[in-house]
């Protein structure tokens, strides 16, 4: 039930942002459509609706966003320099890292963050052992622990707080 109410609110907000006019006709149609969406597939949206009321998570999420944008800029400049270099200084390989995150949402976000940060691209996720296989454009270490320390530990710390 909580998940359905949450779905209704999110889809109504999305509708208002897309139509962007406080006309009564738009609002009535928006309420109708969001109600239909929430009724038909509201149960799939989230399992832990009570977690959405915790304000600490949103503050951590904003901090996470700032870190993410900074890393994204760094990664783009890094890749651009590698591509423009005449000697093409790459040293690629697929390494395996271990993470302490368990839930599916957190793992999805971690994989997305890894893909957009310097020189790494997530290839596959092993949910049982919570391992990730990562394609690294410049392999610094083939060891599991050391690679985990370099790649994921920075984000893990933040995402653990967000999805606690």
């Amino acid at each position: 039930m909580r998940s359905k109410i949450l779905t209704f609110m999110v889809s109504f907000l999305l509708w208002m942002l897309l139509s962007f006019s406080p006309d009564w006709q738009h609002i009535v149609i928006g309420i109708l459509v969001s109600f239909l969406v929430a009724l038909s597939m509201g149960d799939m949206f989230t399992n832990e609706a009570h977690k959405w009321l915790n304000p600490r998570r949103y503050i951590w999420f904003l901090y996470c966003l700032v870190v993410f944008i900074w890393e994204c800029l760094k990664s783009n400049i890094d890749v651009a320099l590698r591509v423009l270099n005449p000697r093409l200084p790459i040293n690629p390989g697929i390494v395996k890292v271990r993470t302490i995150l368990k839930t599916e949402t957190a793992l999805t976000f971690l994989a997305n963050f890894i893909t957009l940060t310097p020189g790494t691209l997530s290839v596959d996720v092993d949910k049982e052992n919570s391992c990730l296989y990562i394609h690294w454009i410049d392999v610094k270490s083939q060891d599991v622990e050391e690679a985990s320390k370099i790649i994921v530990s920075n984000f893990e710390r933040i995402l653990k707080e967000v999805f606690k």
Partner: protein
Amino acid sequence: MNETIALIFIIIGITFDLFGCIGLIRLPDVYNRLQASTKCVTLGTCGILLGVLIRFGFTAAGAKALLCIIFLLLTSPVAAHALARGAHKSGIKLWEKSVCDKYEEDK
């Protein structure tokens, strides 16, 4: 004034798009190409859309551009992940000078 800032953002975005496409040409195998092109082209297109947001302010078009940025940042890593996994599953080897392939060993 707004137009000048928007133009600067659009030019930065197009520059990163160009770098991504050069990476698509120069790098040796599928995974490296995915790295360069996904990162650079996503950020470049986000830069162009940020230019739209600055040009129009927070009006109907600006709000839509913001939604488009969020959507792009959420979906393009997922698409890259799916393509990399599909390529590995369909048996495409890594570049011959690659260092290691732990995924192949663990399968």
